[in-house]
């Protein structure tokens, strides 16, 4: 589904991401982990068109999407969430999702302006789907609350809802658990698991190792922009490179 080959990004002399390879098959739930500054988010930005790679190639469902615009990549079904609270703050929660739904409504601008019959029918469908999605991410009761006034955890869930409204084939989640309390972490993990079981392919960036270990079936570990390990949770846990990256060497510890 997703093939990444030799993806590299240099910021001046700094190699933020250095020739990373990754391939994801449909139905997988892959974790991307690594210490702070390992290049995880940069890697996401390269995949989704927010940054132009210095070299390397990204292929999604057989199509070369390297260096394409974010909206094009999202339209092809590779949809991301953001680490910061990326929501439309002045809209209500429901309006946020409706906006995301409209893009894939297949309506042209004349139908939208003149509010034709097809348009109204599609808008009703989008409205219903937005309500369902709000329920799915657990904030169904906050549909008419202004998004900017939601609690942190709810904003994060709304962010995931936005991505889900785009009918993703591959969902890229950028640290969905950041800043959440324990209960919210559990809810989010249940949601991720459920989305995956429903057939969605997911690439998950996570800082919280334990949480990531509990859901992902395969991992890619980055440090200083390079792949230092790849494999199942067991393999990762026992990999000395990974342990060193996370805990530092004996000398550092002393």
């Amino acid at each position, binding site marked *: 589904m997703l093939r990444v080959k030799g993806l590299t990004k240099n910021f001046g002399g700094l190699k933020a991401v250095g020739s990373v390879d990754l391939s994801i098959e449909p139905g997988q739930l892959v974790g991307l982990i690594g210490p702070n500054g390992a290049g995880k988010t940069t890697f996401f930005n390269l995949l989704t068109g927010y940054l132009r790679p210095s070299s390397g190639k990204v292929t999604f469902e057989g199509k070369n999407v390297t260096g394409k615009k974010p909206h094009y990549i999202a339209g092809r079904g590779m*949809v991301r969430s953001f680490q910061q609270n990326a929501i439309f703050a*002045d*809209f209500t929660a429901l309006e946020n999702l409706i906006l995301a739904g409209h893009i894939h409504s297949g309506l042209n601008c004349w139908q939208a302006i*003149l*509010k034709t019959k097809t348009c109204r029918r599609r*808008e009703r469908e989008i409205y219903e789907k937005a309500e369902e999605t709000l329920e799915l991410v657990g904030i169904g009761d906050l549909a008419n609350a202004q998004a900017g006034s939601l609690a942190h955890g709810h904003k994060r869930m709304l962010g995931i809802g936005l*991505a889900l409204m785009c009918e993703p084939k591959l969902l890229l989640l950028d640290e969905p658990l950041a800043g959440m309390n324990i209960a919210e972490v559990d809810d989010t993990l249940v949601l991720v698991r459920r989305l995956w079981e429903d057939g969605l392919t997911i690439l998950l960036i996570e800082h919280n190792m334990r949480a990531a270990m509990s859901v992902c079936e395969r991992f890619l570990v980055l440090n200083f922009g390079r792949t230092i390990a790849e494999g199942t949770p067991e393999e990762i846990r026992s990999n000395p490179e990974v342990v060193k990256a996370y805990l530092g060497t004996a000398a550092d510890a002393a």
Partner: protein
Amino acid sequence: MNKTKRSRFGIAAVFLVALVLFGVFYSGDYVLHVGVLVMINVVLASSLRLINLSGQLSLAHGGFVTLGAYASAVLLTKVGMSSTWLALLISAVLAAVIAVVIGIPFTRLKGIYFTITGIFFVQVIVLTVQQWRSITGGNGGLQGVPRPDSILGIEFASKTSFFMLAIVLMVVSLVILWAIERSRIGMTFLGIKQADSLAESIGINTTVYKVAAFAIGGFFAGLMGGFYVQYVSAVDPTVFGFLPTIYMLIYVIVGGEDSFLGPMVGAALLTILPEVARPLQSWMPLLFAAILMVIIFLLPEGLVGLPHRLVGVLKKRTKEQPDATS
């Protein structure tokens, strides 16, 4: 919600009928002339607001009006086009096309940088019409632009006839702008304004929408430019130069940028003000600036927020009074 929608529609209809009746029964040339100017400025301010909706503060508007005005003037006096209506349409379309051409590079810039390019655009247009004497008549401008051809047996000679034409153009423009705003396109503009990289992530081609907003605004600016020149039958380079462009923005902010009605209220009041306060003519820019400052500090939602504020104050008063007496 449906009820408020209907009552709003009702108020608009009543207002429109009153405007038409006023035009029919009132025959003071001067007042009708001011009325036409008000309606032109209402459309200019409302179309500028549409661009602002997409998160782009444009100061290019006067450039599009000038472009539209000169397009009509040149076509009708130099090229010898026979249909004034076709010239009017070309004024609008040309402004929209130029908006697309400059919009593609300009909308890549964000915030204040985009705004600055607008000022630059207005100056380029003004300088062009000043220097290109063989076509535009230089600083003297162009005179003797013919009035609109008669249509459906209506001759455009009296102030009343122009007043009616202005009503038609204004209503058509406002209905289109309103339809765009309440559709998903308007919603997308607002989304882009709030978070444009997030909008990209959910599949919105933000460049296309930003350029579209710019072009739609440009279209109506060009249309009004064409209408203006056919109305006063002359144009010079600075009628819609930099200062008038700033005024258009002031109409929007003073009236209230967040509501559709805001720019209309702002444009109407601030077009009438200089006429009422004739002796202060040379102080007008200062007065406008002062009004703008007062509004920004005391009434950031604009004049349309005033009734709501007053109701709030009155409610508070009536609530407090029993306490005070007891």
